[in-house]
């Protein structure tokens, strides 16, 4: 057994992987602390894994951290003191917190007496991402792994040639401080959103604008034939702890957005902000496509895996999937840092003699429920044998249902086990779900879920995005049928980030139920915007009471909140 740990930069997580490469358990710290984006050492997650896997944890022989702590620390500190003086905000912060970040991993993990005998290893950050993608990919080789994120160890982009699970060549890489990911985060910051959690809002906003600043942004960065030009003088992330952009960026694109409130379409500057978002999105797409072109040109390999935080940008993914030379494009369900713990642990299980079967389980976070509690405190409407029938009837009656079923989704997207669901034809209801319940800005769309057959009726689907849509990793264009019937789940540009339900899941069984008077459901994660996804029944009831929703789907039946 192997334990992978990711922590201290994005959402921290822990993965337990067996010797033959199966993901036994996966826990994100934010599920337990209930602090969204919790990046602290995943103490609660490790405790949970030890408690829930009593038979397995004594067999853990190795623990692997998803990056090399000293390399990551030195990379930033060397750059900042070399280029911005010894005593800047970032250097002070880095020195002050030397023992609080990644460097504290050994100290923190050593506190677990249950893990005292385990050997500790440190994997390369971008290899952790690569292996998280490999775990969910078809086992044929060679293939190319493209990893793009803000920063990982010392790299921000890596291209690997994967000859087998135990033979990998580094083809090309880009070192910090030059970073496409940090460029996008700086624009996120400029538009008044939080770095590391507001990037998806910038992506949604981009559809409303025109890329009028694209030429300006090309002055900041460009990529051609393996040469990356990046002007760091437009940014301050290399020396500041509270701002990502410099005065020079303001001179280029104007004043940043400063507001406590959500941006909505009535804002007098909405179109200006949308143009900036559109320009950032456009240049991100063009540069990443050039990186894929370069990888293909160098290797002539047309099967790709893509990971790192930038792979969460589903609009970008859709553009890559359209590239003519691409035969396959695979993205793990959790391509960002939280999924890197899975990759690191999976690497330890890789044996040159074994070809790993593809992992198809998208719901790996084990949860224990208190049946007695909900049966005592909620009204039971349907028993456990009539869950599908009952859920279909409630949706037919134009109700919003909440699901808290089985294991929680591995990735950040709700795929039916932790979802708010309602009939996608009902525009009013979808609007209520999006703005009143989820409290989102009015320009952020709600995603739909459907069967593969239905997706072909309403959207332009090909083999590549068919698979990507199982984890909502891409967007697709709607056809005229969808425009007539399903406006509520379409974005401004007539695209949708669809989920194609995997067979034998709750959501697939619901969609194919004989009681279902619907074929597409609006599906969004079961949480309020500043909270992590609901994990336990207590979280579910708390969220429902806060939102005023009534119907809870569980493994023990369907319940109504009193």
């Amino acid at each position, binding site marked *: 057994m192997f334990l992978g740990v990711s922590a201290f930069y994005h959402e921290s997580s822990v993965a337990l992987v067996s010797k033959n490469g199966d993901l036994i358990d996966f826990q994100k710290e934010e599920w337990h602390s209930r602090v969204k984006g919790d990046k602290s050492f995943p103490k609660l997650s490790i405790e949970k894994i030890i408690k829930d896997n009593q038979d397995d944890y004594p067999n853990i022989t190795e623990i692997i951290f998803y990056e090399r702590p000293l390399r990551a620390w030195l990379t930033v500190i060397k750059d900042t003191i070399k280029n911005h003086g010894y005593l800047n905000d970032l250097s002070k912060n880095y020195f002050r917190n030397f023992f609080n970040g990644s460097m504290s991993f050994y100290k923190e993990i050593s506190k677990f007496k249950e893990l005292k005998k385990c050997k500790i290893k440190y994997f*390369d950050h971008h290899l952790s991402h690569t292996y998280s993608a490999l775990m969910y990919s078809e086992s044929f080789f060679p293939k190319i792994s493209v990893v793009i994120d803000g920063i990982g160890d010392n790299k921000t982009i890596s291209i690997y040639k994967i000859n087998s699970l135990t033979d990998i060549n*580094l083809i090309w890489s880009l070192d910090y401080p030059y970073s496409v990911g940090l460029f996008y985060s700086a624009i996120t910051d400029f538009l008044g959103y939080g770095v590391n959690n507001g990037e998806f809002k910038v992506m949604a906003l981009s559809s409303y604008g025109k890329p009028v600043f694209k030429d300006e942004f090309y002055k900041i960065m460009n990529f051609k034939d393996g040469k990356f030009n990046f002007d760091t003088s437009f940014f301050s992330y290399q020396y500041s702890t509270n701002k990502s952009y410099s005065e020079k960026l303001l001179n280029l694109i104007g004043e940043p957005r400063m507001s406590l409130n959500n941006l909505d379409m009535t804002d007098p500057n909405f179109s200006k902000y949308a143009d900036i978002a559109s320009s950032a999105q456009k240049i991100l797409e063009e540069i990443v496509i050039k990186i894929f072109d370069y990888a293909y040109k160098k290797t002539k390999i047309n099967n790709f895996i893509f990971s790192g935080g930038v792979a969460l940008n589903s609009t970008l993914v859709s553009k890559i999937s359209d590239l003519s030379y691409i035969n396959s494009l695979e993205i793990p369900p959790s391509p960002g840092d939280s999924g890197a713990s899975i990759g690191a642990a999976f690497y330890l299980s890789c044996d040159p003699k074994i070809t790993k079967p593809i992992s198809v389980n998208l719901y790996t976070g084990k949860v224990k429920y208190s049946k007695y509690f909900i049966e005592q405190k909620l009204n039971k409407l349907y028993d456990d044998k009539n869950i599908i029938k009952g859920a279909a009837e409630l949706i037919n009656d134009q109700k919003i249902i909440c699901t808290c079923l089985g294991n929680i989704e591995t990735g950040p997207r709700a795929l039916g086990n932790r979802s708010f669901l309602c009939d996608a034809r009902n525009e009013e209801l979808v609007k209520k779900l999006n703005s009143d319940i989820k409290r989102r800005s009015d320009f952020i769309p709600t995603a739909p879920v459907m069967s593969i057959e239905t997706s072909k009726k309403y959207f332009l689907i090909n083999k590549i995005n068919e698979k990507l849509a199982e984890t909502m990793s891409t967007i697709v264009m709607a056809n005229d049928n969808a425009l007539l019937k399903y406006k509520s789940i379409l974005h401004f540009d007539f695209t949708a980030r669809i989920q194609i339900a995997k067979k034998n899941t709750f959501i697939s069984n619901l969609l194919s139920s004989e009681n279902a008077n619907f074929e597409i459901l609006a599906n969004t994660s079961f949480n309020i915007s500043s909270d992590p996804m609901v994990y336990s029944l207590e979280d579910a009831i708390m969220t429902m009471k806060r939102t005023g929703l009534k119907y809870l789907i569980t493994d023990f039946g369907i319940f109504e909140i009193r």
Partner: protein
Amino acid sequence: MILTPENDKNLILTLVEFSYAEYGSALEMLRASKFVESPDLKMGYIEHAIDEYRHTELIYEVIANQIIDSENLNPRDIKFKPLNVILKGYIDKNAFLVEKLRLKNFVEFVYSNEFLAKISFDKLKLRIKDRKSIKIISGIMEEEQGHADSSIDTLNDIMRDEHRHWGYAKKYYENKYPQSKLKLAFLREKIKNRLRLIYLKNFKFLSNIFDPLINLLILVFAPISLLIKLPEDNRKNILDNDFNSII
């Protein structure tokens, strides 16, 4: 954890701290709901958590009302970021209170904190001028008082449960609780809050001592860090790299 705001100069930043304190309480209550077995107690803590979450949002409404007059403040410094609840120390992830304390002590803690919260909001109210915000704060104060009262009920329920469990005489517990021990708990929390305030007040002073030390450390170690060469990747098979090394 409750702040005592009467001497704090910046009202908006004080309100921001209050919102994190309420958010921290919400997380503590939600954690408590998962820790207890009794469905009644579970639901009680869930309801309590919901109130604390709402207080966080309400305080931000008050902030929005006040911010109109404060042109000097940067929304970036005020914006609610859930992670700050850990960074600012409003929850200790090494042990949530319900795990750290015995259940009885936890309930005592809740009681005394809610009571102190009410006092703090009372003082805060005096510094707020607009009617809408005063109404919001008054609503929060009433609820804090309600939570303090219901904590006494909860404590009595626990005593009754424990009486059944251990077979002790009910009268014994009713005589012993809640008054004397609750007074002690109240005093304990008040001292803790005072210490916290002293720490906050002296933070600037402490920074003046520690900052030069950090600067000295940087001046000594930064040149050394420049000399350390990061290892080259093995391009032939990157898996031949040494994965036992932190560099």
